[in-house]
C-alpha cells in the first residue's frame, strides 16, 4: 500500500483546495498515472486529471509530484522511494478541477511568438536543403512536448504575468535557429521588450522541471544574445 495525498479542488463547490488521502494497492512497476486510475476506478470516481499517451510524449499529465513538476506517466512509484506521495496540480496556473489546470495562458504565450516556420522565398519543388549540422542545432528544442512543466516552475512567469515563459521562448529559438526560416530579426522582435527573453533571470527551474531534459535557458540565452547584437548592429534585411 502506498499513501497518496492528492490535492482536490472543484471551483464550483469548494472555497479552497484541500488534500485527500487514498491508499493505493501499488504494483511493482506502477506509475503515478496508473495509481490515479486506480483511485478513479476503485476509490473515488470524482477525481479528475488529464491523460493520453501514457508514454511521456503527449504532455497531458504534467503535475506536481512530491514537490517537483513531473509527468505522472513517466514517474514510477518505485523511483520516488517514498511511502507517501503528494500530488497536486501544476502550480501558478488556474485550477480547472483537481489536477487539471487551465493551459490557456500557456498557449496564448506560445501563439505570440509565431510558432511556425516562415520562409518567404518560393518553395522549391523538393525539400529545402539543410545540413546535418544545421539540423543538429534545433535537435534539443524540437523534443518539447508543450507540457507546461517548465512554465509552471518558472518563478518569473508566476510573478510577471506577461513574461512569455521558457517553453514559448524555446520554440522561438527553435524557429529562429532553423536554417530554413527567414523571419530573422523579426523573430527577435517578437521576444523583445520588458516581458520577453530578457526578463528571464536564469533561474534554471525550467531545466530542472523539464521531463524531456531540455534546457530552455540555453535557448533563451541565445535569444538574449541575438537581441543585444541586433540592438547594436544594423538589422540585416
Amino acid at each position, binding site marked *: 500500500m502506498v499513501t497518496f495525498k492528492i490535492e482536490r479542488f472543484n471551483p464550483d463547490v469548494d472555497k479552497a483546495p484541500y488534500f485527500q488521502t487514498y491508499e493505493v494497492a501499488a504494483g511493482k512497476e506502477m506509475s503515478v498515472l496508473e495509481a490515479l486510475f486506480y483511485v*478513479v476506478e476503485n476509490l473515488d470516481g*470524482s477525481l479528475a486529471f488529464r491523460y493520453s499517451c501514457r508514454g511521456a510524449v*503527449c504532455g497531458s499529465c504534467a503535475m506536481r509530484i512530491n514537490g517537483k513538476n513531473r509527468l505522472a506517466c513517466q514517474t514510477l512509484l518505485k523511483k520516488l522511494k517514498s511511502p507517501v506521495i503528494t500530488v497536486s496540480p501544476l502550480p501558478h496556473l488556474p485550477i480547472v478541477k483537481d489536477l487539471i489546470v487551465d493551459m490557456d495562458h500557456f498557449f496564448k504565450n506560445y501563439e505570440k511568438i509565431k*510558432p511556425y516556420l516562415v520562409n518567404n522565398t518560393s518553395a522549391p519543388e*523538393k525539400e529545402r536543403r539543410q545540413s546535418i549540422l544545421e539540423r543538429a542545432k534545433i535537435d534539443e528544442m524540437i523534443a518539447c512536448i508543450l507540457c507546461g512543466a517548465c512554465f509552471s516552475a518558472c518563478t518569473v512567469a508566476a510573478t510577471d504575468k506577461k513574461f512569455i515563459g521558457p517553453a514559448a521562448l524555446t520554440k522561438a529559438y527553435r524557429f529562429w535557429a532553423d536554417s530554413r526560416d527567414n523571419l530573422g530579426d523579426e523573430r527577435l522582435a517578437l521576444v523583445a521588450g520588458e516581458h520577453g527573453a530578457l526578463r528571464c533571470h536564469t533561474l534554471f527551474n525550467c531545466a530542472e522541471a523539464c521531463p524531456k531534459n531540455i534546457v530552455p535557458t540555453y535557448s533563451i540565452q541565445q535569444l538574449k544574445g541575438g537581441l543585444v547584437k541586433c540592438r547594436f548592429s544594423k538589422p540585416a534585411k
Partner: protein
Amino acid sequence: MGLHHQVIVVGAGLSGLRAALAAQQDGLDVAILSRVHPVRSHSIAAQGGINASLANAEGGRDDNWEKHAFDTIKGSDYLADQDAVEIMTKEAPGIVYEMEHWGTPFSRTIDGRIAQRPFGGAAFPRTCYAADITGHALLHTMYEKSVKEEIKVYEEYLLLSIVKHDNACVGIVALNINNGEIIAMSADAVIIASGGYGRIYGNSTNALINTGSGMAAAYLSAGVPLKDLEFVQFHPTSLYGTNILITEGARGEGGYLFNNRHERFMKNYAAKAMELAPRDIVARSIQTEINEGRCYNNAYVLLDLRHLGRKKIMERLPGIRDICLHFAGLDPINKPIPIQPGQHYSMGGIDTNANGETSLAGLFAAGEAACVSVHGGNRLGGNSLLDTIVFGKLSGHFASGYVKAKKKNAADQALQAELAKVKAKVSRLENSAGKENPAKVRSELKTTMMEEAGVFRTKAKLEAGLAKIKELKERYKQIHLLSKIKKYNLDLVRNLELEGKLALAEVIVLGALKREESRGSHFRTDYPTRNDEHWLKHTLAHHTESGPRLDYKAVTITRFRPQARTY
C-alpha cells in the same frame, strides 16, 4: 439554433488537422472538435517515420511510387484497394515535401536531403524520419500550421452521436467534458478523424484515449458500415510490461531479435528479410517463440541494439533510449530490451472510398478511423502517417466540394431530437442503480480480446470471445457510475466510451470468426492459408439491434495480381 459550422472535423490528430486545413483553404467555415488538445492526439506517439519514394537514400535511388505501391499491396496480402494505394503512393512525395516546407524537422542526409531508413516489408529505404519522434515532429508542424491559419478548435469535447436527416449527415451531438454540458452542433459536412480503438485490447501500444469512440459513433448512430475490422495489427516489439512501442526503426537501424537460446530466431521464419519482414510475420514469429517457451518469464524475447553502438543509438534512437530508461530502468546501450507483441493499429475502420466519402452523404472519414482501404490485411510501417495526411487532405477537399454543391436543408428538429435522445441516454447512465463495476467490464473485455482475438485465432476461441462480449454487453447495461459530478467527469467519459468499445469488439470478433482463412494480420490456426477464391473481399459490418450484420465487397485490383507472399 446554436452552433453551426460548414464543416466539423472530429479529431485533431494528423488526419483531422490536415482535413480542416484543406477545407479552410477552400474557403469554408471549419471547426475541429477534439477530445484532447491537438498535440495530445495519438499521432504524437508515432516514432519510426513516414513512407515516400523520394529516392534520397544510398541504395534507394531506384525507388518510385510504383515500387512503393507494390510493396504496400504485397504487404496488405492483396486486400488493399489498388486504385487507392496508387493515389496514396503518388501523393506521398508531394505530401512529405509539403510537410518539410511547413517546417517539419526531418533528419538529414549528408547532402542535406530528407533522410530515409529501411522499414519492414519495403524493398528500399523509403521511410522519412525525424530521429525516432517522427509523429511528434509531424503533428507539431501540422498544429503550428493550424495555429497560423487560425483553425478553430473545440477542445475537450467528446463526440457522442452523429445526426442524420433526409439521408444526409447534418451535425453532431457532443459532450463538453469541461462542464458536462451536452450540445448539438449543426454542420453541412462532418469528417471523422478520430483515430484507432487500440484500448479495446489489453496489451496495446496506443494512447489511453484510443477507444474508437468516433468509429463507434459512425457505426451506431450514423449507421454507416465498418470495413475489415477483423484486421488488427500487432506490433512485434512493444516494451514488456507497459507495451510502449519500440519503433520498427530499431530493427531498421539494425537491431536483432533473440530468444532465450540466444538465437536470431527470425532465420526460421523469414530467412531473407530476417528482422525486417513485415509486422504480421515478425509478430507471429515472436508469439510462436513465446508460446513454445523459447522466451523469458513466459512472456518476452529480447531486442538487442548493443552492437549498434552508443553513437548511433544516441543519434537515431534517443527517444527509445529514454523510454527504456524511464519505463524499464535499463539502458539499451548496454542491455537488450525485453519485448512482446502488442496491439498497434487498426487496418479496418469506417468504410470510405478514396475521397473519404462514407455511405452517408455529408459524412466523411480519414486516418486510422477510416478504412479506404490502403492497408488491406496488414499495414506496412510508415504507411499510416502517410495515409492520415494524404486522405486527411483529400477528404477535406471533397467535403468542401460537397458542401458547396449541396442545397441547404433545415435540420433543426433532427438535431434537437437527437440531442434529447443522447441526454436521456446519459442521464440513464448517470442514474443507473445497477450493481456492475464498469472497471471490471472494461478489463474483462481487454483480456478477452487479447486471448480470443489476438495474434493467433481459432474458431473455438473466437466463439468463446463472442459469447463473452455478448455477456459483457448485457452487464454494461447494469453498470453504475462512481461519480455524478458534471465538471470533468472521467468516470462518465470512460463509460460512454466503453459502450462503443463493446460494439467494435463484437464486430472484430464476428468478422474474424466468419473469415475462414489466414491473410495479413488475421491468422487462423484452423485455416492457416490465404484463400483468394473465397475471401479476396472486404468485410462490411452494419449495425442492427441484434448485433452486426456482415456482408462483403470486392477488392479493387488494378495492376498487381495476387501472388504468394514470401519474404
